[in-house]
């Protein structure tokens, strides 16, 4: 049997609905026989009547409703149809959910699922990676699973956490990524994973970019360099200790992310290594991000806009030469 990243997300939600009466799913087209734009909730409405609910096209009210339900003890999962549309709900997520515990001492245990990242032909409004934006604001936990196993266990963890969690699931990985089975064990939330060991350069990445980074590392291995690849898993909290430990082994750092370049996760990784581990670096750190333009529609443009293993490998070679 094999299970995809998308099926893992569905299975995690089925388990959550089965095990915890407080859980319900709220989003556009998630209910009925349709099961969501990507089928991440396929069959769940039938299996769990009244707990997988279609909403109007009202992202602000979807999250507001989830906040209110969470205040009354529920554990809502909000599915945004695309991460891009969560911009409509920014106010509820950042200003309401994100400030609530700090202001009132009462946390808001909601999980907002964001189908994130680029796929061919999706264009500027169905391709965005918003983890950097959410990580910037206080009061939120931001998850970016890169494997089928993490997609499953981290969604279960997200719902168990008492604070608001932004769960960025990558659409490109939905069908491309497969595992033999669902995991029984899980890594702790907030801890990075060494996805590939190496001694010459550390690439820090997450989500779909982990796989581009791993491909780049395989390519470079043919040239005699061993790259260590760190999968952040959650970008907030950011496992600085794991990143520093890796850079201590390799002396070189490349941060790779799919979100826009200004500020963001890659800038944060480099800032932390530069301030806390400057002495570990044998070369200037670097980063690869998407370009600083809206995300293009045509595949020829999109494949250049998005960081690819080719661009990551080129940047890695440059750092290795220094």
């Amino acid at each position, binding site marked *: 049997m094999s299970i995809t990243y998308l099926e893992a997300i569905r299975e995690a939600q089925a388990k959550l609905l089965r095990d915890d009466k407080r859980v*319900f799913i709220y989003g556009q087209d998630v209910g009925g026989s349709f099961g969501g734009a990507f089928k991440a909730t396929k069959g769940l409405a039938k299996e769990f009547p*009244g707990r997988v609910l279609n*909403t*109007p096209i*009202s*992202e*602000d*009210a*979807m*999250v*507001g*409703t*989830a*906040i*209110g*339900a*969470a*205040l*009354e*003890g*529920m554990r*809502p999962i909000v599915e945004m149809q695309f991460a891009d549309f969560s911009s*409509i709900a920014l*106010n*509820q997520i950042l*200003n*309401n959910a*994100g*400030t*609530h*515990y*700090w*202001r*009132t*001492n*009462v*946390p808001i245990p909601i999980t907002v699922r964001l189908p994130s990242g680029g796929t061919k032909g999706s264009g500027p409004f169905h391709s965005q990676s918003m983890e950097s934006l959410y990580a910037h604001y*206080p*009061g*939120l*936990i931001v998850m970016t699973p890169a494997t089928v196993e993490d997609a499953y266990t981290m969604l279960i963890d997200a719902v168990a*956490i*008492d*604070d608001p969690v932004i769960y960025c699931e990558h659409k490109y990985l939905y069908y491309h990524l497969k595992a033999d089975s669902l995991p029984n064990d899980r890594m702790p*939330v*907030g801890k990075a994973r060494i996805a590939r060991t190496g001694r010459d350069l550390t690439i820090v990445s997450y989500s779909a970019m982990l796989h581009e980074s791993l491909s780049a590392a395989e390519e470079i291995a043919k040239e005699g360099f061993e790259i260590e690849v760190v999968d952040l898993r*959650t970008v*907030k*909290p*950011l496992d*600085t200790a794991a990143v520093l430990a890796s850079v201590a082994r390799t002396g070189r750092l490349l941060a790779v992310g799919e979100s826009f370049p200004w500020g963001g996760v890659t800038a944060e990784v480099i800032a*932390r290594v530069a*301030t*806390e581990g400057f002495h570990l670096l044998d070369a200037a750190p670097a980063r690869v991000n998407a370009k600083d333009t809206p995300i293009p529609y045509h595949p020829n443009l999109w494949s250049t806009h998005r960081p690819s293993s080719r661009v990551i490998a080129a940047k890695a070679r440059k750092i290795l030469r220094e």
Partner: protein
Amino acid sequence: MLLTRTFEEKLASMYRGGRITGGVYVGKGQEAISVACGIFLQKGDIFAPLIRDQAGRSAFGEPLVDVARTYLGSRTGPMRGRDGNIHRGSPRDGQLAMISHLGAMVSVVVGSLMAKRGRGEKNFIGLTAIGEGGMQTGATHEGMNIAAVEHVPLVVVATNNHYAYSTPNDREFACANLVDRARGYGFEGYELDGTDLAQCLDVIGTAVKRARAGRPPQLVVASILRLAGHGEHDDFSYVTDDIRKEPFAIDCLQRTEAFIKERELADAATLQRWREEAAEEVENAFSAAQKEPVPNGEEEDWCAISTRDLVDEIE
């Protein structure tokens, strides 16, 4: 109403004396509407007040000392100096802590009501306040629509005080009457004269009853003139002489006092005693809050999440 007016007059005078940091927002002219919002609520109900709802908050059980604590930044108060003035709340008691972004609380109340229904609770309602200014936001639109879709027992009390900060109604909306929107959302809608306490109690009380009885969500649109600035920093010089002569510009508190005298419901001595009691209660609230410690940045627990082992540590 009298307690709120007395409290807020004291608050405004402290603001002018430089004793309050940040803004002061009062409900002068809106006390009759607001008290009617709070007074019919019971334990188990949800109240999401807005910035001019001291009367409703008090009627639903908010201790006056908590208001004083919030304005003075007391570390003992519900907001512990982390948020001030009207953003306070006690979510575990059904008093939600509003954010400044108008309309955001409508859908939050909807969610709380859905959860209560899901748990099998009975006879609960939610009530949220909005103004004619806040009615023009996308969040209010989304919230009211989703309330009707989810068929929750919600009452939305919208006070048209005729100005969104300084902007008059003709630059706020172009429909003939805001209550017409009730039909568009699938609400039941009513209008009332917010200067008339009896009408406020009757119409809002009826809306609360209808919501409890399982009717569709209720919209009440009340008309008044805001008798103060948007906040105490605002001299409200933009309020025209003409509008001050409108019937909706009458002070609800004065009108209520006149009603009491006319019907001989209380004599002058009793009214005077009520005023003295209110003043004493206000003094007690402020003097208690003033004795309490204020926060200290060096000792503050700078942590925005409750899950301590997931705090992002930045050097």
